[in-house]
């Protein structure tokens, strides 16, 4: 069912780009940082501006009216956090890969193709999630590592904003992706993880939630 939904999304995009209209297609790639303010923020060390996550986007723009266009496409990105602190809970490294299908409105400011602002929503689907945690017990490090995709929620929703500077066929953008609050990634990991809720930072914090992805990317128009 989940695989079918991904294929369905792909076909919808396929069909949308098949329609002949005043349209553009961009491919871009970039790096991003994850800013967390949810409960997990209490437990991990803050590593601001590390930009150790990536995004690869295929964006399709189709003229709507005046200086406004419809933006959609496919976005592959990852997000997570890393903490080596053992002070509260465990050390914890979480990384997840997602595929998103943003749907946004692009405003071509003054209709001069010098600055675009995109705003819209972006449903995104979890492809895989990996967690590694460790605690010191009896002066020894107990580590637990594994793929927790099965014990994670798969579908999330958020908003996405982009500030784009086009230069001929190229574009440079700063983007923010903000999942709606209260969407915990936890789905029954308790009892399947080697650390309990008093030990695991990920479990204590009720999973990966309440964060924002901020990134920079560059790309070019291919059509």
């Amino acid at each position: 069912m989940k695989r079918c939904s991904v294929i369905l999304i792909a076909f919808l995009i396929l069909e949308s780009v098949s329609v002949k209209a005043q349209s553009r297609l961009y491919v871009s790639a970039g790096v991003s940082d994850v800013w967390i303010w949810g409960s997990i923020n209490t437990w991990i060390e803050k590593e601001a501006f590390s930009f150790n996550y990536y995004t690869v986007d295929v964006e399709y723009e189709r003229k709507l009216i005046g200086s406004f266009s419809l933006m959609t496409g496919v976005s592959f990105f990852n997000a997570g956090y890393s903490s080596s602190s053992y002070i509260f809970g465990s050390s914890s490294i979480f990384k997840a890969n997602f595929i998103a299908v943003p749907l946004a409105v692009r405003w071509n400011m003054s209709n001069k193709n010098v600055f675009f602002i995109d705003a819209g929503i972006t449903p995104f689907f979890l492809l895989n999630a990996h967690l590694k945690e460790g605690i010191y017990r009896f002066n020894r490090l107990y580590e637990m590592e594994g793929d927790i995709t099965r014990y994670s929620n798969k579908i999330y929703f958020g908003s996405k904003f982009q500030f784009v500077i086009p230069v001929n066929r190229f574009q440079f953008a700063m983007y923010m992706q903000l999942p709606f609050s209260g969407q915990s990634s936890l789905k029954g990991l308790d009892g399947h993880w080697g650390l309990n809720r008093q030990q695991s930072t990920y479990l204590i914090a009720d999973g990966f939630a309440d964060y924002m992805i901020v990134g920079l990317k560059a790309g070019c128009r291919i059509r």
Partner: protein
Amino acid sequence: MFKLKTVILSLAVLSVSCINEHDIGISCADPIGSEDYVTADESWMCFLPDINGCFRIELQTTPQIRSVYYDDHIYGWIKDVGIKNCLSEITEKPLDEFSYLLPLVEHHGYVVRFPDNSIGRFYIDSFDTDSFGHVTRVNIIRQHNY
């Protein structure tokens, strides 16, 4: 347009192939409320308040645990329930064949029972040894009432 379709479809197929839902395979977390406990030779481990339900750890020869009877205080019985991977795997609640004295074995689980019919459990996580191989400390994970 055909090339574009091919590229997008390839991306979709790639994303689907990235999905994996393997079981982690390990699920032996310690129960909530359990406690790490380190004991040395001749030290006491009490499960109930005010030196009640106490056991003495003896490491001079073979590591062993002995129920302690102390004036008008509650004492306990103990039973070895075999090899376990963690405290959570001790799920037995035996009613008989308890002892006052038992050898301590690494990675074994033990159940303790008291006259008020409350029970506890503990797991021998590891032994610390000196350069001669003598056990100097016992690392225990324990819980009263489960």
